[in-house]
């Protein structure tokens, strides 16, 4: 995949998803991970979560995955591609009265969003088959879900608490296994 190919794919996904970063994730996972194999599920997950816990737009994770694939030029150009359709605002403002009365446009965005939710849950499902490969990963998932759904903690705090608990558990298991065998225990957990 060339830099140009990546930019075209990003542009298409962005327009299809109406710029919603969450919605776009399903398309990008299919394009870059499943079809082209230029990105791993872990990389995509890292990027996605990163954009959720940093300030700014949620679709900035596109810069992160573009960097992983094509370095700084890729990341910078990806932002141009993502921002460009926004300029449709200018003609849209001029034809405001027409669009306002057009219910089909509203129906279109609702249809897109509902389809996207289904796609995204399906993507989550296929991502989970890769990520949930050891008991500790299930524990971290359960803890993170609990914190995100039932507490009002910021996403970053929930994410760090769950991750921290996982790291703590791994270190504890390591210590009880006779100490010093940190790498070994990690490898064992990974292969469970």
């Amino acid at each position, binding site marked *: 995949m060339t830099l140009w190919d990546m930019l075209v794919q990003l542009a298409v996904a962005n327009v299809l998803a*109406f*710029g919603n*970063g969450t919605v776009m994730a*399903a*398309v990008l996972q*299919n394009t870059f991970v499943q079809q082209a194999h230029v990105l791993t599920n872990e*990389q995509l997950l890292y990027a996605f979560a*990163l954009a959720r816990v*940093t*300030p*700014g*737009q*949620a679709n*900035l*994770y596109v*810069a992160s995955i573009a*960097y992983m694939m094509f370095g*700084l030029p890729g*990341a910078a150009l990806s*932002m141009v591609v*993502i921002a460009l*359709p*926004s300029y*449709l*605002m200018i003609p849209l*403002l001029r034809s*405001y009265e027409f669009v*306002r009365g057009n*219910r*089909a*446009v*509203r*129906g*279109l965005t*609702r*249809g897109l*969003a*509902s*389809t996207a*939710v*289904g*796609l*995204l*849950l*399906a*993507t*989550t499902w296929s*991502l989970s088959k890769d*990520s*949930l490969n050891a008991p*500790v990963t*299930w524990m971290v998932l359960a803890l*993170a*879900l609990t914190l*995100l759904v039932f507490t009002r903690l910021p996403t970053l705090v929930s*994410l760090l608490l769950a*991750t921290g608990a*996982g790291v703590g558990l*791994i270190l504890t298991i390591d210590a009880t296994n006779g100490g010093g065998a940190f790498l070994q225990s990690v490898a064992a957990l*990974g292969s469970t």
Partner: protein
Amino acid sequence: MPSPHAAISLRTLFLLFLKIGLSFGAGTGMSAVLQEELVRKRQAIGRGEFMTLYGLARLVPSGSMTALAVAVGYRYQGLLGTLVVLLAMILPAFILTVGLTVAYTLLAGSPALVVMNLTLMPAALAVVAVSAFRLGSEFFTPSLELVLAIAAGVGVLVLGLNPSLLLLAGGLVGACVLRDRSPEDGR
């Protein structure tokens, strides 16, 4: 749209969107800050006009926050204004995101990455799942929307259909069938 409200200089636009770019809460949080600054603090735009811009921004096939930024930049300082606001809004978070991605790339092949895959990734997965459900809760009552979502999920998981095509189909079905169920005013 003519307006009796105050003008905003390029420099002020730049500083304002720098602040917005560093706001948390993605599009929703950022547009709330923009509204607070423009409508209440500076009284540079009426609430009704702002909500119109916001509604229109949701119809543009790009992030609604970038579309809103273009609209505001253009309104006060023309095309140059749009470039200034986009740069100010995107650059800080861009640097942060790329910086943290570089850090991740540097960890490749180290034990730390193995631990991270076992701990951070499941937590990140939870973030993805929760944002999918939150997006859904905006749309879901037992309805055609729910049917679309389920059909899309089955289409991609069981039938292996292309997500882009499903998205397009969902949008078209929505445009044809969901039109009368939509509320009159934009959100």
